[in-house]
Structures are given as structure tokens and as C-alpha cells.
């Protein structure tokens, strides 16, 4: 396919509208305190951004292979060209992301208006201001033409994630989850920033296009590249919740459900995958790092899927499934097939947002996140149908888009001769179908546990957004099925059958266990024994981090505190005590009697006189 380039002016408008909205909401207090006005400003801005993004995509022109899609301006001037530049890079990758980010942001902001209707009206302005800031940051991230600019927006989206997870900051669990998410992603970002600086030291530029050009002409120092790319990948590990830094994402579900849909499913967490895709021409030069990415991705996918199978909180199940799907995307990139991973990113962004928003409706109905206390919604297809469409897409059932993108990933990993990751991903595909339908059967079709609490009136705004996303999911799948002739990675023919069988078996097992009750879940758990026990305890990883925190961080802090209190302060205390004591002794010299001072003057003069005589001799 011919690469295309979009108008940088339009891209800047897309970027500027949410920023404008954020500044308005942040600065103008009456606007922020009035919920409808704040929501209107934010939604209007993001709708304008979406329209502009569509225009950008439609107006994109063809681009020569050697023509740069970046427009940059000098930022940090230096002798011999600017040290750092800022600008926009409007190629196919960023235009697709623009569309996804603005679309999901718009739908989520509209949905939030209904979902958060019972919130204090004055705090909704804050919510929409954060949303506008997030949209700006995420759009800036995908448009970044340099590593440095990307890092800045990378941190900004991290900040927005922190702010929105902790939106209900008066809940201790939400505040803790926000801090946990912030710190654990920072751990990865340390590697990212170190990698960027080392890359700059080795090449003298942050610019993607310059670096790609150097890579294709062999001007890059290939020997020093693997550690650099590994460090940059660490940033993606933190942001995209890869093992072992995935522990923050399930806790991030403490935020409002629309936030989870937007930030922790569709857009921000995919920034890591986007980074690897964007910098893929550099990652291609380091096959060892790519292999590591594939293995970690596949392992993450399997690990998260196993944890999703034993989780009872509907949002956490979706969070684990997000981690699992991010593992899929990373595995595709690691198998040198980032196009497949990126396609999965786009389709997953749409149907995972749908799933989260659908879960939001169920939570709205039952006032609980616990799937075991839901059920009895069979008579309300307006609620369950969109969710089931999303679930089928995630489970990989044709003709929904998840089927095609997942198959492309599996084919890519298979073609790259990564047998063990392929097996892990195949098992994950089965588990995905199983745990998602476990949720569907228990949340919607099981016998209601207590009918009294549920109130089945759902604002039509919420269901409308879900139906729209479901239609979009279906449309993407159909377009892929009928209008897309070529596949990037054509796997063996049996792969198609394998995908279908895996998804079908998973769905069937879930049906047998949770709908027909033919198989007792407790007996299955008993048969699996240790794995189930460990999965329920999240494989001890959270405990491990908590332990590390308590032992290492608090230990070091105590040590440093002791040194500060007793060594540093001690020296100063001794010095000041000596000064005080010496002063106490010396004050006796000051008698206050004028004649004593005259004695002093006379004796001093005499002493000087004698000294002068002695020296002259």
C-alpha cells in the first residue's frame, strides 16, 4: 500500500482543540463549576477534533518512500542545527491513531455525561478538564515526530491516567491505585528516558525519520543499539502493562468505568504498542530484543488470561483481558509483524471500549462489580446485545474484527518460528473465549440473585453509545472480511480452523460450566489445583512488589533517616552545643565597666608597642 501523508495544519488543529478546551476549563472557574457548560465545551472540542481527523485522513495525499512525513520546528537551538525539534508526524500510523483516539474519546465523554449523572455537579468540570487534557496528550503522543516530544506526551498521559484513576480521591483504594499506577509506570519510564538519552548520545538526534533513514543506510551504530532499544522497550513494558509491570492495570479499575474504557483499554495503555510500532525500523535492527518482546508478550497474554478466569470483578476481568490482548499485540511486534499488532490495537480499541461501556451499564443496573451477584437480564437485549458483540469480537469469532487480527498475529508469530510463544498465544485464545463467556453467562443470563436491587432503566445515551460501538465493530469486521484482499502474514491453512476450534471450545466450555451447570466450576478448579490457587493470588506478584516495597524501599528509607537524624544532625548539634558553651564562658569578659575596656585598650597598645620594638630589632 502506498504510504500517505496528511496535512500538518489539520493535525495541529486536531491537537489544538482539546488543548483549548482544557485551558478554558482550567482557567475559567464558572465554566468549570457548571457541569453542562464544561461537558459541552469538552465534547464540542473533541467532536471538532474528530471531524478534523476525518478530514485529515480523507485529504491525505500519497507520499514518496523517501519523503519525510514530519514537519518540525526548532526547539532547543545549538551550534550546527537544533538539538531538539518539535512538530507533527502525519503518516498512516498516526492518522489511524488520531481517528481512534478522537472517536473513542468523544463516545466516552458523551457516555460519561449519563454515567456520572449522580456525581456532584461541581466536580464534573474537573472530570471533563482531565478528559480534554488526556485527549490533547494522547493526540500529541501519536503525532510526535521525535522521541523527546513523545516522551513528554508519554508522561502527560501518565499524569492524566493518575488524575482520572484517582478521580474519587476520597476513596482510599482509588488514591492508592492512582499512586500505584503512577509509580509502576514510572519504573518503566526510567528505562525509556535512559534509552532516549543513550540513543541521542550514540546518534545525535531524537528524530524518528532521521533515525529510520540512518537505519536504512546502515549509519546507525548497530553494536550499541540492543541495550538502547531494550531500555526504550522498558517504557513500553510499563505503559502497556507487560509482565512483570502489569500489576498496576487491574488496580486502575478503581477509576470511573468510562475512564477505564478510554484510558485503560482503548488508548493510553496501547501507547507502548504504538511506541514499538512507531520505532519498529529501529527494533528491526535488534533481533534479540524483538525475540524478548515476543516472549514477554506471549507470556503476559497467557498469565493475564489465566488470572481473568478466576476473577469475579467484571471490570478486573476486562482489565486482565486488556493486559492479555496487549501481550498479543506486543508478541506480533516481536515477531516482526507490527502491522498485525497495530491492526489488533485499532480493532481492540473499539471493541474493548464497547465492552467496558457495556460493563458500565451492567454496573449501573446492579450497583456492584461482582459478576456472581448479577444475572437475569435475558429479557433486555438492548443491554446485553452490544456486550455480546464485543465479547464475540474479543473471543475471535468471524466475521468480527478480533478474529482476523488475532489470526494475523498468530500467523505472524508462527511464521517467525516462535513455537513456544505461538503455543502460549493459542492457549490464550481459548482462555479468552472461556473467561469472556463466563462473564457473559453469569452477568446476563444466569438466574438473578436478588431482583430487588436492580433497576432496569438505563439512560438511552449509554445504550446508544454502546450500540454505535457495536455497529462499528461489526462494520470493521465485515469490511475486513469482504473488502480486504491481502493479508500481511498468511499463515498455514489449518490456522483458520485452529482459531475457530479454540474460540468454539472456550465458548462451549463456558456454556457448559456457567449456563448449563453441567460441569461444576469448583471441580475444575480442584483439578487444576495449584494453578488456580496461584492465579487467584495473582501469582504472588502484587505481594512480591508490596514486600519489595516494604523491605527494600522502607528499609533504605529508615537507614537514610537514621543517618540523617543521628549522623548529619548529630554533627550539627555538637557544633552548636560547643558554640553555645563557649559563648556562655566568654560572656564573663564583657563586664560592662568602661575602665575594664580601657585596661584592654592600654594593654593591647602596650603589646603592639612591644611587638613593634621586638620586630624592629
Amino acid at each position, binding site marked *: 500500500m502506498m504510504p500517505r501523508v496528511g496535512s500538518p495544519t489539520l493535525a495541529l488543529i486536531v491537537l489544538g482543540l482539546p488543548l483549548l478546551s482544557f485551558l478554558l476549563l482550567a482557567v475559567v472557574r464558572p465554566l468549570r463549576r457548571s457541569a453542562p457548560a464544561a461537558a459541552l465545551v469538552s465534547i464540542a472540542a473533541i467532536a471538532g477534533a474528530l471531524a478534523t481527523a476525518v478530514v485529515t485522513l480523507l485529504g491525505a495525499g500519497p507520499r514518496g518512500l523517501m519523503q519525510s512525513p514530519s514537519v518540525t520546528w526548532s526547539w532547543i537551538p545549538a551550534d550546527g542545527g537544533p538539538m531538539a525539534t518539535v512538530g507533527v508526524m502525519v503518516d498512516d500510523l498516526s492518522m489511524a491513531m488520531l481517528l481512534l483516539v478522537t472517536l473513542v474519546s468523544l463516545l466516552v465523554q458523551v457516555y460519561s455525561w449519563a454515567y456520572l449523572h449522580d456525581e456532584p455537579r461541581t466536580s464534573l468540570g474537573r472530570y471533563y478538564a482531565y478528559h480534554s487534557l488526556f485527549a490533547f496528550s494522547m493526540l500529541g503522543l501519536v503525532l510526535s515526530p521525535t522521541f523527546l516530544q513523545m516522551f513528554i506526551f508519554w508522561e502527560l498521559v501518565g499524569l492524566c491516567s493518575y488524575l482520572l484513576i484517582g478521580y474519587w480521591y476520597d476513596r482510599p483504594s482509588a488514591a492508592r491505585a492512582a499512586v500505584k499506577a503512577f509509580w509502576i509506570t514510572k519504573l518503566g519510564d526510567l528505562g525509556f528516558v535512559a534509552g532516549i538519552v543513550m540513543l541521542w548520545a550514540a546518534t545525535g538526534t531524537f528524530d524518528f525519520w532521521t533515525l529510520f533513514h540512518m537505519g536504512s543506510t546502515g549509519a546507525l551504530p548497530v553494536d550499541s543499539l540492543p541495550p538502547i532499544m531494550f531500555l526504550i522497550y522498558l517504557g513500553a513494558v510499563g505503559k502497556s502493562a507487560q509482565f512483570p509491570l502489569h500489576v498496576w492495570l487491574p488496580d486502575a479499575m478503581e477509576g470511573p468505568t468510562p475512564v477505564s474504557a478510554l484510558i485503560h483499554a482503548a488508548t493510553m495503555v496501547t501507547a507502548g504498542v504504538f511506541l514499538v510500532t512507531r520505532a519498529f525500523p529501529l527494533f528491526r535492527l535488534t533481533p534479540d530484543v524483538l525475540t524478548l518482546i515476543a516472549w514477554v508478550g506471549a507470556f503476559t497474554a497467557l498469565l493475564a488470561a489465566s488470572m481473568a478466569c478466576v476473577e469475579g470483578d467484571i471490570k478486573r476481568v476486562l482489565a486482565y483481558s486488556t493486559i492479555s490482548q496487549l501481550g498479543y499485540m506486543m508478541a506480533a511486534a516481536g515477531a516482526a509483524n507490527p502491522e498485525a499488532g497495530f491492526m489488533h490495537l485499532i480493532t481492540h480499541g473499539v471493541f474493548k471500549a464497547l465492552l467496558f461501556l457495556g460493563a458500565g451499564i451492567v454496573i449501573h443496573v446492579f450497583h456492584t462489580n461482582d459478576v456472581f451477584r448479577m444475572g437475569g437480564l435475558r429479557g433486555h437485549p438492548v443491554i446485553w446485545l452490544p456486550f455480546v458483540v464485543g465479547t464475540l469480537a474479543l473471543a475471535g469469532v468471524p466475521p468480527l474484527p478480533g478474529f482476523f487480527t488475532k489470526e494475523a498475529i498468530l500467523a505472524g508469530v508462527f511464521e517467525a518460528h516462535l513455537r513456544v510463544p505461538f503455543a502460549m498465544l493459542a492457549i490464550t485464545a481459548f482462555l479468552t473465549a472461556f473467561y469472556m463467556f463466563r462473564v457473559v453467562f453469569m452477568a446476563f443470563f444466569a438466574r438473578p440473585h436478588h431482583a430487588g436491587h436492580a433497576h432496569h432503566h438505563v439512560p438511552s445515551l449509554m445504550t446508544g453509545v454502546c450500540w454505535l460501538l457495536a455497529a462499528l465493530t461489526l462494520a470493521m469486521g465485515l469490511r475486513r472480511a469482504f473488502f480486504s484482499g491481502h493479508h500481511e502474514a498468511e499463515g498455514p491453512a489449518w490456522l483458520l480452523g485452529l482459531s475457530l476450534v479454540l474460540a468454539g471450545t472456550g465458548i462451549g466450555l463456558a456454556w457448559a460450566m456457567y449456563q448449563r451447570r453441567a460441569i461444576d466450576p469448583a471441580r475444575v478448579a480442584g483439578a487444576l489445583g495449584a494453578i488456580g490457587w496461584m492465579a487467584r493470588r495473582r501469582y504472588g506478584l502484587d505481594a512480591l512488589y508490596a514486600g519489595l516495597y516494604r523491605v527494600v524501599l522502607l528499609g533504605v528509607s529508615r537507614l537514610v533517616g537514621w543517618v540523617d537524624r543521628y549522623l548529619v544532625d548529630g554533627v550539627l548539634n555538637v557544633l552548636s552545643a560547643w558554640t553555645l558553651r563557649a559563648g556562655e564562658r*566568654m*560572656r*564573663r*569578659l*564583657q*563586664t*560592662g*565597666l*568602661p*575602665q575594664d575596656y*580601657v*585596661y584592654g585598650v*592600654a594593654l593591647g597598645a602596650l603589646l603592639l608597642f612591644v611587638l613593634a620594638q621586638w620586630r624592629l630589632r
Partner: protein
Amino acid sequence: MPLGAYLTLAALVFAIGLFGVLTRRNAVGILLGIELMLNAVNINLVAFGRFHADLAGVIFTLFTISITVAEVAVGLAIVIVIFRVRRTVDADSLDLLRG
């Protein structure tokens, strides 16, 4: 008479003045001691001026005398104020500056 005789006289007068300043308990006595020390200096100036045939020494002495008069006026004024406030001019009881 040789120069040394004048200088010896000046040194004696200075020493007497210093002794007075250090030992008198009355503030007025201390002022008198200071006057003696200043006049010892005057003797030195006049003596050196005479022996070096230089009028500058004599002229300086005239200045010193007038300054001394002003100093005594200020000093006595201070003593009077101290007396008004403290009802004493005993130097041993004026120890406001004690540390």
C-alpha cells in the same frame, strides 16, 4: 634642654593621665585623666615642632586644644545626663553593657 627631657615629661604626664583614667571611680575624675593624656600629646607636638623648626606642630596643637574643649563639653554633658538618670557618677555602677 634636650628633646628627650620634653618627651620624658610628656610620657610622665601621659602615664599619670592613664593611671587616673584607670583608677578613678568618679566619672569627672576619668575625664580629667583623659585631659592629662591629651595634653601630654600636645607637649610632644610642640616639642617636635620647636626642634624641627616646623610650625605645623604648633598649629596642630591649637587644633587639638580646641577639639579637647569640645570633647570636654560633650563628656561633661554625658556625665550630667548619667547623673540625672542614675543619681550617681560612680564608674563601677555604670555596667549596663555587661554580657
